[in-house]
């Protein structure tokens, strides 16, 4: 008994650290969400979350996260499928995986800078697209591919989505590749042996087996976009009001006019994230049971 207590002493520093700098600050914040300025219990802040301004912030955040998790997820899946099941040579496969590891970690301010230099008003790709012109019948210059004349802006939700996709789809490649590799050759052969066509194999076995992994990975992508702050801040200077941006403004100065409402905002954010990650963990468990990773 004494010996086992002694054992627990060995992990005390770790737990003390986590509690002091993660759990305590977080719960302290969440407690604030249920308090008024004087520290009395209230649900006003939670109700305040349903004000149009805050609802709009949540909607924008959810929109960006949804768009980028689906676009990044679809692109990432096909890339992962191409490099595992397709006839891609080995070096293509390993270099794409390496670059995915790199790009999935390339976020924050530098990523925003890279996209401003590439797709911004005077960016590299913008300039190339702008310069594709021809003379119309009335001798005026027509440039059909000018993205900013066509309504595109890097500093909009769409621009943000394009930028996020830079780290989203490589993340999908990294997460889903082991799952696709987990599809056993014997399943395909057994299905074929029993008379199934390639299509029947995919519809009845391949896709259902991969589905939990695909959904789980998409949720991970969703969470990764939902919690992002630095890229959006550096790209738009805070003009797109994501939940993270609003929280940032709240820390800097009292934009909501109510600190405790800011705490509620943060709590709402964590609830969404916790929901995503919990569902991801659930799906991942099922996937690993099927795929025996």
């Amino acid at each position, binding site marked *: 008994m004494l010996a086992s207590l002694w054992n627990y002493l060995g992990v005390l520093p770790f737990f003390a650290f986590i509690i002091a700098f993660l759990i305590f600050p977080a719960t302290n914040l969440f407690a604030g969400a249920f308090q008024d300025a004087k520290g009395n219990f209230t649900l006003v802040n939670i109700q305040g979350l349903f004000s149009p301004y805050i609802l709009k912030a949540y909607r924008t955040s959810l929109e960006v996260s949804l768009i980028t998790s689906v676009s990044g997820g679809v692109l990432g899946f096909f890339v992962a499928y191409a490099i595992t099941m397709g006839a891609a040579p080995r070096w293509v496969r390993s270099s794409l995986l390496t670059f995915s590891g790199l790009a999935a970690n390339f976020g924050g301010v530098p990523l925003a800078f890279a996209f401003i230099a590439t797709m911004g008003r005077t960016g590299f790709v913008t300039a190339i697209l702008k310069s594709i012109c021809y003379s119309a019948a009335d001798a005026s210059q027509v440039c059909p591919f000018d993205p900013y004349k066509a309504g595109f802006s890097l500093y909009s939700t769409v621009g943000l989505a394009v930028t996020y996709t830079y780290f989203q789809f490589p993340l999908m490649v990294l997460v889903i590749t082991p799952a696709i590799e987990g599809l056993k050759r014997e399943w395909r052969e057994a299905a074929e042996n029993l008379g199934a066509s390639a299509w029947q194999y995919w519809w009845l076995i391949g896709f259902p087996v991969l589905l939990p992994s695909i959904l789980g990975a998409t949720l991970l992508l969703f969470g990764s976009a939902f919690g992002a702050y630095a890229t959006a801040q550096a790209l738009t200077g805070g003009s797109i009001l994501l939940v993270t941006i609003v929280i940032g403004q709240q820390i800097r100065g009292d934009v909501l006019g109510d600190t405790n409402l800011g705490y509620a905002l943060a709590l709402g954010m964590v609830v969404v994230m916790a929901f995503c990650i919990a569902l991801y963990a659930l799906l991942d468990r099922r996937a690993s049971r099927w*795929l025996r990773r």
Partner: protein
Amino acid sequence: MAFLEISGVTKHFGPDAGAAVDDFSLSIERGEFISFLGPSGCGKTTTLRVVAGFEQASAGSVHINGVDVSSVPANRRNVGMVFQAYALFPNMTVAENVGFGLRVAGQPAALIQARVAVMLELIRLPDYARRYPHQLSGGQQQRVALARALAVQPQLLLLDEPLSALDAKIRIELRSEIRRIQQELKLTTIYVTHDQEEALSLSDRIVVMNMGRIEQVGTPFEIYNYPRTAFTASFVGHLNLLPVQVTDAATGACTFEGTPLASSQPAPNKQAGSARLAIRPEELVLNGTGANRLSGRVLSVNFLGNVVRLRVRVGAVELSVDMFNERKLVLPAVDAQVVLSFPAHACWLMD
């Protein structure tokens, strides 16, 4: 023409690679149980996969029931296959797995249900219909895989080392189960294995393979007792080899370190000179009355249960001697001098 006719099948993986299977020809009668036996990489699995349609042969043809299936895709050959790693579909229940072949063939649900019930009865797992593969043991999974392959009533059953991933005890149990089911359905079966015990106990005939080629085809009795090549002799069962000088090639007489020995067959190359005399450990008798006698010193005594294996040094070689265990058996002591004897018909000369 036999029911299954494999003629001249050759398989190269890539233009520069050597032959994985080299000119393989075999006729298999309806209802026969055939084993392909050999070390890993000998081409046995590749041959099986050519029959199943998963590999395209570089040369040669496969006829099933008189039909050339060489260009028929795997999903239209109606050949059942059981894989080494239980390849059950993880997203389906046992019943759905077993019914898969009928389902993709578009059979009505009622028929599928009835057939699945029959199959589960056959493999003695009638209560497992609603389980998922991950809830089953390895042995149970392999039974279900067998039922799944049989449910479509294939004209041919192929088993690719189906027991090698299982525990020893389950392996023996499932082995007799496979034989029982095969006999019950009178199903033509090819069984690939590297385990000689499995091949000997299950098969009507064994095909011993090495380096892509057939070494010998025969009944288990023939393969074990009358191996035609050195490879077969040493791969199937344990074999003692004595370096001898042939004195009379026609009668098979020879000498080992000066001791004259008699064998019943003529020397394979019909001339005098160096050769090897082969004899199985169980044919050597301690202090017996056989025509050939060799004396030696006991090096070790290993008790293996039903058999006791001695290592005996005779001149420059060590021989294995197997004795059947019995309660009254008197074991020789280590370092004891013993005389080994064996009859002339028990040994044969090899190059």
